[in-house]
């Protein structure tokens, strides 16, 4: 899948800014590697000299090119070799085989403020950090005012940075890095630092850098930022490229895969969140109506732990009442993992009257289009009498699920309101309509 894209690209006139050719990287896992003469000496007598090193291929035969002005996103689970790849590109590691040709200056935002010295002032550290990226003193002098202004550290700039807060430290680090005006900016998750305000500023700076023709290679777990910044994406796993193309498609394929694997793990582990396993204090009530099971399902009624924004969802409550109970109310509380109480529907609000329950039965809450945005959520379930004086059974935030970005591009807040925008201006179609998806959302849940 990769060679065809590459062939197409080589027809273009532009030289690639970055050319990665069949790069592999092997690490020796030397847990027992001799680190000192003493160990060598001891091991010599124990005849263990060559027993230790195991090999591990972090990358295998990776090839791709990045052209000036492009921005490429790399996604993949932890330990998939993404960071290794970035370090290779930055020149910190050397490939075991293959070749990387860089035709310009690279700045790597691998760790903001790497190389800052606590005893030097902010200003001195700007020089030190800038020259670390390969700039000259004059170039740094030219950028100085702009760097200080961006970092908002005006009054503290001549103070030794050991007196800085961690936020100030990061602001200065980002400010220097973005001002080094690299041809290629390598970004590794660093946008997740600083307060919301500064994160916004970083995003803004990165967008402006792109508009000036800058090239970005972004590695992130934040799939939303990959989709919003990048025009191509690579899904990278098991040391190999798994998918390559438009970010939305690649992200979708990746999410499907993640969901599949999580489901597989869950079904392999059997029913992990059995009602019996609820922790002390997580469940209370008189028990005259017991909620014996809760299932989070897709439209087909298959149990899931991952749902997509915009896709249908069912929450199924199974109850048992040993003696007949009149007019109970079943309800749900939905919390975001950050603590926000998002919603609290129940059968009463839903105008579903259940005159009497006896024995075992089922109550289902149907959500036609899930309006939650990406994130982690938990569900509490309750059975209560009509006058709200007797709690029969309550499971507090006992059932977890995740939502991944589906068909929406919204990524702020917790929910999408599903509204429509209009204007009194004559609307024009979007200049770059998104290409059709490889996988329609409706099918995702079935994969």
């Amino acid at each position, binding site marked *: 899948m990769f060679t065809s894209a590459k062939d197409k690209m080589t027809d273009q006139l532009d030289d690639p800014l970055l050319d990665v050719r069949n*790069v592999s990287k092997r*690490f020796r896992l030397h847990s027992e590697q001799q*680190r*000192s*003469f*003493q160990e060598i000496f001891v091991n010599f007598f124990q005849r263990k000299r060559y027993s230790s090193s195991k090999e591990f291929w972090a990358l295998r035969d990776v090839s791709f090119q990045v052209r*000036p002005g492009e921005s490429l996103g790399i996604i993949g689970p932890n330990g998939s070799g993404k960071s290794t790849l970035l*370090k*290779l590109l*930055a*020149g*910190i*590691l*050397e*490939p075991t*085989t*293959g*070749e*990387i*040709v*860089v*035709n*310009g*200056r*690279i700045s*790597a935002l*691998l*760790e903001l403020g*790497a*190389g800052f*010295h606590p*005893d*030097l002032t902010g200003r*001195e550290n700007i*020089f*030190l950090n800038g*020259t*670390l*990226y*390969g*700039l*000259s*003193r004059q170039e740094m002098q030219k*950028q100085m005012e*702009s760097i200080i202004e961006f970092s908002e550290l005006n009054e503290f700039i001549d103070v030794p940075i050991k007196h800085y807060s961690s936020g100030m430290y990061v602001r200065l680090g980002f400010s220097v890095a*973005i*001002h080094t*005006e*690299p*041809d290629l900016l390598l970004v590794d998750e660093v946008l997740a630092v600083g307060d919301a305000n500064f994160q916004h500023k970083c995003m803004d700076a990165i967008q*402006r*850098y792109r508009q*000036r*023709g*800058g090239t970005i290679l972004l590695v992130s777990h934040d799939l939303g930022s990959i989709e919003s910044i990048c025009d191509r994406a690579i899904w990278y796993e098991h040391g190999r490229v798994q998918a390559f193309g438009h970010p939305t498609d690649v992200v979708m394929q990746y999410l499907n895969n993640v969901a599949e694997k999580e489901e597989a793990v869950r079904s392999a582990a059997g029913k992990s969140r059995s009602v019996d396993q609820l922790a002390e204090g997580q469940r209370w009530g008189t028990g005259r109506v017991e909620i014996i099971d809760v299932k989070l399902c897709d439209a087909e009624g298959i149990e899931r732990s991952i749902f997509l924004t915009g896709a249908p969802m069912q929450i199924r409550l199974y109850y048992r009442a040993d003696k007949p109970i009149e007019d109970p109310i079943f309800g749900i509380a939905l919390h975001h993992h950050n603590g926000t109480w998002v919603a609290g529907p129940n059968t009463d609000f839903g105008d579903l009257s259940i005159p009497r329950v006896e024995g075992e039965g089922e109550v289902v809450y149907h959500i036609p289009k899930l309006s939650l945005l990406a994130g982690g959520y938990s569900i509490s379930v309750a059975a209560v009498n009509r006058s709200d004086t007797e709690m029969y059974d309550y499971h507090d935030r006992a059932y977890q699920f995740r939502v991944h970005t589906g068909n929406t591009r919204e990524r702020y807040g917790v929910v999408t309101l599903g509204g429509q925008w209009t204007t009194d201006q004559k609307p024009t179609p979007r200049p770059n309509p998104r290409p059709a998806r490889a996988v329609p959302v409706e099918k995702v849940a079935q994969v």
Partner: protein
Amino acid sequence: MQSNVLHHPSVPKRRMGGQMSLWQRISELYRFRDLLYYLVVRELKARYKGSLLGFLWTLVNPLLMMAVFTAVFTIITPNTTVPKYPAFLLCGLLPWNFFSAGVMTSIGSVVGNSNLVKKVYFPREVLPIASVLAQLVNFLLALVVLFGLLFVFQSDISPYVYLLPIIILIQTIFVTGLALFLSAVNVYYRDTMMIMDVVILAWFFLTPIFYPLQILPQSYEVLGFTLNIHRLMYILNPMASIINAYRDLLYLGTYTEIDFLLRTAVTSLVVLVFGYWLFTRVSGNFGEEV
């Protein structure tokens, strides 16, 4: 961020994976010369932050040592008193301090800067070189004071004192070569530092710094071979030659033999080339080894 030009024609095409040529490496090092400057500044500033006397320590330390050695030496060997012993000693001690401090601080320079080596690309040789240069700066400052003292002690400063920068250059080359070699080895074997502690101490006593070479026997018999100690000292120990040259110019007030100096220069260059060769051969792996 005012410019719209993002392409830096000054930045050469960089090729990773294939070996960089020597010329590419040197031009890369040149591109990072300002980093070298700031690392030296950092090292000097960091060392003297919070100490009352600051860089004066570079001078106080040899002066105290001078006092100790003068006392001890005149007590141990009252017969072979060297004229103007303090001046004699300082002419050897200051270059020696440059040598030993240069070697010892640079050994740990790569390992000690692992936060940089793991996070940022730059030519790694900058680190040991910066350590050596920081010590060179200290040495040059100490030299200023040395000249003052030599004047006080009425030492015979040679008319050929203009050769001094050449000797300093030769010594710097020698120290840099050792620094590159040892700092690279230290990445793989952390014992290098401990071993060098002892080696430097032994080296100090084997070099005529606080004693004149003449107090050693001219020849010595081992297993039936007659060894010319004085000759061997100069052949095997470049520091002996270098310190000898300093003394010629600053203490004895004579001319220093040029062919002798030349041989020391060649030795130093060989050490530098070998150290640099070894360093560049293994420096690509520093990112995963430190």
